[in-house]
């Protein structure tokens, strides 16, 4: 019985112009989206290689403690599915001999056309176009049959209601699924023929399949919402308007409003303001440091009966008194400087950590609000699976730390043995002295950049995964339940 119902459903949908339209959109847009994103990936990849190569060539002989090591972050091949935050993600890590590292994003002038109109990647096609299509396919699945009178005829037979609705969902979803898969497969074929994206290799197969599974579940949720709306509205006119309203809510309003609401609930300062605070703190500590070192010099000099302010450092001659004072100063200033350096790092670290924590709190609030919409959950899951999401931000931090310690052990610590620092008054002169085995020291490059494993990405987003599963089951169950109670008159 179920089989007949499903077959009829599929037949009916296939004979409808709508399914042709869905197929057309899928075949046109999905390959286009994948192609565009993969071209962009290739460009990014080329830029990354250029940058890395130039960095290596430029710094071949640039070996010294002043050297700032740069690690370039390769673009993730999976990013062709969702660009996520990739525009905002750092593409470079720099680290220096103090072990301090930074993440940088070479912004410059972004392409304004893309900024104005947005991208057309796979994620966009799923969340905006296909979500809308899912509603357009389902909006009159029940209300249309009711208007046709066929629903009464079906229910007048000895068929349990749950079978009717089950067949309805299964049949229409199957057709949609086939169109979608045809689109994806033709997209992959296009990629295989025209680009060199390694997405078709075995190592990306499992993440790719997981992304597909989640996308299918996501579309299933929207399908069930569409059918539920069709059950709850009395005619197709009402169904389509209700579907449109719900679509606007879940696709556009809820996701975007959530950070706004979070900012109202838990307001925090902007990053630029915090940068300004950091700069102020830094200047404060540096001034303090200069003052202390000046006083130190003064006190050492006055102990020896000299006036530091009147001393001409450039024409000191060989006054043994002055030399002894400078040696003493040299011995003491290192500790003072180190103390202030540590102070600076700590103070800035506290500001940064504080701000980071605040950001996390706000981020979590807005994340939770946007999870009301399945699109929110889907976005977080997919962006993290494609290494363009929030996890990537902390992952870059992790890689930066790794790179920093790698640079320290492979480069700076080797040089440090030969490194000397001389303080002559306020002037510090530094350099490498002694016989150095230059061949054993290589300019550090970031050769292996680790992306989080798929399992850990999924694990970190277990709530979203749970929500997606919950939404699919929930809306499915509610649709079935509502249809059992449905008034067919």
């Amino acid at each position: 019985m179920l089989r007949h119902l499903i077959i009829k459903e599929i037949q009916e949908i296939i004979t409808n112009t709508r399914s042709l339209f869905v197929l057309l959109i899928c075949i046109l847009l999905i390959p286009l989206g994948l192609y565009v994103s993969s071209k962009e990936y290739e460009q990014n990849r080329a830029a990354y290689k250029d940058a890395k190569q130039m960095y290596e060539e430029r710094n071949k002989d640039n070996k010294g403690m002043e050297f700032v090591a740069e690690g370039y972050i390769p673009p993730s091949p999976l990013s062709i599915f969702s660009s996520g935050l990739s525009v905002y993600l750092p593409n470079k890590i720099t680290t220096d001999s103090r072990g301090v590292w930074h993440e940088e994003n070479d912004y410059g002038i972004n392409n304004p056309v893309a900024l104005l109109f947005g991208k057309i990647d796979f994620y966009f096609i799923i969340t905006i176009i296909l979500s809308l299509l899912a509603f357009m396919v389902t909006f009159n699945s029940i209300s249309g049959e009711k208007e046709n009178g066929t629903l009464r005829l079906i229910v007048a037979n000895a068929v349990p209601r749950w079978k009717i609705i089950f067949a309805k969902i299964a049949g229409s979803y199957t057709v949609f699924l086939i169109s979608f898969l045809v689109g994806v497969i033709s997209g992959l074929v296009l990629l295989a023929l025209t680009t060199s994206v390694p997405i078709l290799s075995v190592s990306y197969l499992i993440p790719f399949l997981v992304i597909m599974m989640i996308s299918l579940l996501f579309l299933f949720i929207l399908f069930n919402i569409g059918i539920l709306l069709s059950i709850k509205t009395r005619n197709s006119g009402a169904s389509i308007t209700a579907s449109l309203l719900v679509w606007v809510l879940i696709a556009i309003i809820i996701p975007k409003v959530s950070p706004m609401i979070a900012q109202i609930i838990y307001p925090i300062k902007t990053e630029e303001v915090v940068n300004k605070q950091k700069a102020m703190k830094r200047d404060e500590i540096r001034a303090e440091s200069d003052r202390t070192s000046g006083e130190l010099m003064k006190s050492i000099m006055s102990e020896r009966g000299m006036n530091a302010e009147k001393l001409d450092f450039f024409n000191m001659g060989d006054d043994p008194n002055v030399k002894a004072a400078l040696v003493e100063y040299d011995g003491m200033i290192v500790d003072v400087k180190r103390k202030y350096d540590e102070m600076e790092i700590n103070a800035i670290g506290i500001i940064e950590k504080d701000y980071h924590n605040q950001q996390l709190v706000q981020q979590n609030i807005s994340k939770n609000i946007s999870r009301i919409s399945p699109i929110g959950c889907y976005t977080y899951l997919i962006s993290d699976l494609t290494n363009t999401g929030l996890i990537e931000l902390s992952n870059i931090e992790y890689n930066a730390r790794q790179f920093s310690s790698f640079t320290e052990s492979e480069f700076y610590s080797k040089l440090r043995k030969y490194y000397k620092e001389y303080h002559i008054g306020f002037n510090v002169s530094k350099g490498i002295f002694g016989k150095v085995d230059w061949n054993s020291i290589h300019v550090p490059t970031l050769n292996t950049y680790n992306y989080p494993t798929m399992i850990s990405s999924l694990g970190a987003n277990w709530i979203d995964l749970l929500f997606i599963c919950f939404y699919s089951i929930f809306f499915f169950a509610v649709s079935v339940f509502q249809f059992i109670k449905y008034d067919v008159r």
Partner: protein
Amino acid sequence: MLQAIDLTKRYEDQQLALDALNLEIKEGEIFFLLGANGAGKTTTINLFLNFIEPTGGRALINGIDVTKEPLESKKYVSYVSENVMLYGNFTARQNLDFFAKLGGKTNLTRDDYYMRMREVGLQEEAFEKKLKTFSKGMRQKVGLTIAIIKDAPNILLDEPTAGLDPKAAAELLQILVNLKRQGKSILMCTHDIFRAKNIADRVGIMKEGRLVMVRTREEFMEDDLEKIYMNYMQEMVIEKV
């Protein structure tokens, strides 16, 4: 056999749609339910099909209570509705095929469908045409074919002749007479007194949710049915049956 025992339906807004209906339609009997719009005719059919739950009494199909065993009871009943659109993108045969399978007839061949459609007088060239190209009479004939194919012992018809031309209506009723001869119990709601006079075995008149009169063929043939009907419609005091 269709039975209604004290069958009552009161809606949430306290409107009484059907008031203690008692009715029994035997095998090989055609019962016509007459009455104005909103008299409770369609409510009766909806109750028999368990589209709505009764607030009192029972509806039985072949002795099976429709509220207790809705699925079982539906095996023994076919339904023809007023102005059914069916699936416009399916051909007549595809529509039949789907509903036949729903009705439990899974082993019918193409020729079986053709034969049945010929029986109800559909033109040969219409068999494989999409239903959206059909006229109302043709659609109604397909609807009736669906009921015939199910071959259930009881048939419920909800104003099947509304909007049909006299010839099409006459053909439809002729089919009903044939079905009656096969021993089916037939309940038909209609405004069509003229047709009722021609083929009904019994006629009931409903008013404001109550069955106000039942006459057998012999009884109403003596009197003028139109006259009786109009009298009941105008009468202020209603005798209880």
